[in-house]
């Protein structure tokens, strides 16, 4: 029960920080994707369901706060959470570089999905330009802050990152 409340609070706090305070560490207009880090963290630690619900809540919050059509971030987060959870079953190491790589890949997929959805809705946007100038830098920035965020998440949720039972 305590873990579930902490989980919900962490998601809302991450979404709030993402939409308010995170602009403080903006670099060339790029900020890390904090909710996505939570999605990947819970995907690695708790499996697909927790990752998808994390993505759902964080996505709804960002859709509403960002004044985008409801479902935009939700779809991206949920898909990325599911994929990250599926892939993390195959990972055999706890090395930070592997987790950073996973986050980078997840952020890339997330950004491309987001751009794809945006492109479907507004074909006149420069999708390639957006991927090169926004998605890739944001993915890199998110990957860079991964060790720090994962460390604090591990502290908050009381256990170190570990593979779920049954992972090889």
């Amino acid at each position, binding site marked *: 029960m305590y873990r579930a409340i902490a989980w919900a609070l962490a998601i809302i706090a991450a979404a*709030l920080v993402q939409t308010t305070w995170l602009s403080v560490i903006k670099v060339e207009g790029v900020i890390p994707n904090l909710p996505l880090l939570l999605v990947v963290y819970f995907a690695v630690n708790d499996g697909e369901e927790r990752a998808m619900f994390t993505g759902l809540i964080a996505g709804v919050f960002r859709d509403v706060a960002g004044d985008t059509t409801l479902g935009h971030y939700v*779809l991206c987060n949920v898909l990325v959470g599911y994929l990250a959870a599926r892939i993390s079953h195959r990972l055999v190491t706890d090395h930070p570089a592997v987790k950073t790589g996973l986050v980078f890949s997840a952020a890339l997929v997330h950004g491309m999905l987001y751009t794809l959805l945006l492109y479907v809705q507004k074909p006149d946007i420069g999708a390639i330009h957006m991927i090169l100038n926004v998605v890739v830098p944001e993915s890199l920035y998110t990957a860079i802050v991964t060790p720090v965020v994962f460390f604090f998440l591990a502290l908050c949720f009381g256990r170190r990152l570990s593979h779920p039972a049954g992972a090889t």
Partner: protein
Amino acid sequence: MSIPRRIREYRPVVILCIIVALSLASLASGTRSNIISRGLKTSVSVISYPFLKAMSAVSHAKDYAVGFVLYYDDTVQENGELRRQQADLLTQTKDRKEILTENARLRKLLEFERPLASLALEPVEIVGGAFELEGTLLVDRGSWHGIKVGMCAMTPDGVVGRVTDVGPFISSVSTLQKADCRISAMIRRNRVRGIVRGSGSSLTPICTLDYIDIKEDVKVGDEVVTSPESQFPAGYPIGKIVAVHGGEDSDERALLKSAEVKPAANPYHLDELFVVRRGTPSHEELAGAAQIEVAPAGKAGPDSKTMQERYAP
């Protein structure tokens, strides 16, 4: 395998499918202002508000701290510059007020001069004060400009005095404070004649109206103006009577009484005045000057009485 068991087995996939389907439906509809969206937006805005306020406060505090540390010298310099600008502006404001005052004064002089063009009023500027010269004003016109001894000096407020000394470029005007300044005057109300004489003291502006018939009605507050017998244009204000000496309770053998007159024009407050170039204007000119008051027609003034009538006991 039963359907519920199959669902439990593939629960993550089922959840994924449901969420993806709902998201796609929402994206396909594209609506942002439905009830759910508005409710969520309200909730998010309420939750976000403290964070935004805190962020704003932190941002202001950071800007203040950074500005205090990094831009202190610049701020001090800017403050000094602003102070200098403020001092300059204050000076300009004072100058402007002075200019406005001067403008109003000159307008008044101009309005005074226009109707009296036939008198050839010469505007002059006072270059020497009255106080230090005990009632004498130095003006910036002299014989070179056509000024002559005996010319009258006046302002829109009233008579100032007479030109008593003329140099090439500067002349002296004896004001009503000088004892040797005498002007033939009358009381506007009943045209009783007299001679206004300066007090001779720079400490008091009060002058005296002498040679008033003991029988004449003279009251405090009566306005004293120049008489037609004077070199001044008739009817111009000299001052007001503030006290009367001699009368019913005085010596019965006295034939004359006097009155104290407070001059209308204070020479200590003047910057400019007019000198009347042509002296006493002709009767025709006086009749044509609308500003100059004359006695009402059909009413005999005291100046029409014979000497015997005026001074008989």
